[in-house]
């Protein structure tokens, strides 16, 4: 789920709907009732009140509980629109074309498309990202962290009450080779502010025994990945921990629900490292249910490239998300050669 830098720089940009680029964004001053700013991107307008995000477009409107909206918006911002489609819910979302992005209402909803009520506009990614970043900053109050599990944060309700920019501007971890190597991303410790999560107090924190010969200290290296994950302060936010070319190990810790329904544009592998996640899998375009995948420790499964999925994890669990961040994949998606199923047998 964490994108490599190269994945966002495809040579050509796919535009299967042939949509023109929409320009024009606007930030409105705080309203006199709840004190939040309103936003406009193209013909989409966004405002929030005490409980809801209100999204309108020509001929349509949609309401989402503000906690659901903020958790989804946070991931869309943090993941740079991610691979494929980020469904905030069954109506609203974005589809990434790696340099440009479509924002839609109803485009992945069978009833909307059948009735011709779906609405889509296309933006330069950096322009829409600027609006989304300002939105998550303004709409997140001081007590609320949209990256955190609901039990570990305050509530997002009510009138404007400060901000939490330290939380909403967290930078995802992207190891260049492996966590803990000299010059690479460091391991997490109490001293660096990463304490063990309340659900992982029983996770062994011992480090591997490493015995380098003189001169090989920089390459004879290992670290405690499970201990590292037990100290994650965010949920559903994979970070790159080891890299072979475009093969990215992106482990993460999960609690409550994946805040979006992720619509894949490529195959995505999950390896359950601890505990249990249950995945609802739906058709990527229509949203019709296709499967329920229960994953327990040691289970391996691949999400096909034509589905959307959402995970549910009661106890905080450790999940290894394994991505192929190759910049050639957008072209393969465009010309239809990207595999829909990872392995055929």
């Amino acid at each position, binding site marked *: 789920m964490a994108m490599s830098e190269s994945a966002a720089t495809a040579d050509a940009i796919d535009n299967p709907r042939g949509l023109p680029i929409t320009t024009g964004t606007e930030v409105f001053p705080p309203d006199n009732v709840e004190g939040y700013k309103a936003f406009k991107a193209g013909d989409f307008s966004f405002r929030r009140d005490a409980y809801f995000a209100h999204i309108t477009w020509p001929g349509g409107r949609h309401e989402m509980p503000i906690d659901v909206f903020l958790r989804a918006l946070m991931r869309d911002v943090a993941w740079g629109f991610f691979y494929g489609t980020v469904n905030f819910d069954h109506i609203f979302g974005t589809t990434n074309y790696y340099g440009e992005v479509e924002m839609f209402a109803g485009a992945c909803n069978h009833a909307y498309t059948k009735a011709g009520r779906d609405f889509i506009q296309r933006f330069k990614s950096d322009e829409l990202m600027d609006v989304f970043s300002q939105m998550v900053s303004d709409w997140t109050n001081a007590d609320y962290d949209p990256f955190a599990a609901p039990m570990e944060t305050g509530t997002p309700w009510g009138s404007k009450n400060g901000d939490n920019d330290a939380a909403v501007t967290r930078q995802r971890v992207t190891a260049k080779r492996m966590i803990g190597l000299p010059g690479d991303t460091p391991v997490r410790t109490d001293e660096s502010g990463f304490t063990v999560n309340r659900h992982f107090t029983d996770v062994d924190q011992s480090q591997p025994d490493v015995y380098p010969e003189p001169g*090989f200290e920089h390459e004879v290296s290992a670290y405690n990945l499970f201990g590292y994950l037990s100290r994650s302060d965010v949920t559903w936010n994979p970070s790159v921990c080891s890299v072979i070319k475009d093969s990215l190990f992106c482990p993460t810790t999960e609690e409550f629900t994946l805040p979006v329904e992720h619509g894949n544009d490529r195959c995505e592998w999950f390896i359950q490292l601890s505990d249990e996640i249950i995945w609802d899998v739906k058709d990527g375009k229509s949203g019709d249910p296709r499967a329920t995948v229960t994953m327990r420790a040691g289970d391996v499964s691949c999400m096909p490239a034509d589905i959307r999925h959402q995970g549910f994890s009661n106890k905080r669990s450790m999940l290894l998300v394994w991505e192929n961040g190759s910049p050639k994949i957008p072209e393969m998606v465009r010309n239809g050669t990207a595999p829909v199923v990872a392995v055929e047998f």
Partner: protein
Amino acid sequence: MALNLEEEAVSQYTTVFGSLNDYTPGGVMVIDDDPKNYVFSNVFAVADKSAPYERVAVAKNMEYIIEAVRTEGVSDWYATAHDEFALCMDGEVEIELVKLADPDSAVDPDSEGAHKLSGDPDGQKMGRIVIRRGHQALLPVGAAYRFKAEKASVMMIQTVLGPETVEKWAEICQTAA
């Protein structure tokens, strides 16, 4: 920050990891799909039925591979033309590393995946690492490595499809709804 943890004050959580002797796979409950599309397996179940150091692919993303390995006894020596990473999922594994004197003669620099060496590697000892459950180690390019495990243990290796990779998807994956 106001947290919602009051009702959790007396809760105790147990983190469930798997092992060779204790694993409980989930599975795919199909509504309108083919379970084979999800390539569902379990690394402990795979290792349970594998020969020592058989490198069984459990995940494949184009040329990239994750192998599940039952580590037991002493392995052959391997080398690759790129990094690999070993993640211990159960037990304890020792990794020996040797800096190859002539890496290109040991492994074609344009090749991918792990290659078994015909004998002991020629080069300087780099050191050794002992990993246990949850520990991830670098198997660096330009080095030869071998594994040792006194008791049967389980590793996953992040690598690229190579001559040592064993693909037997129909044997390891869920095929029935």
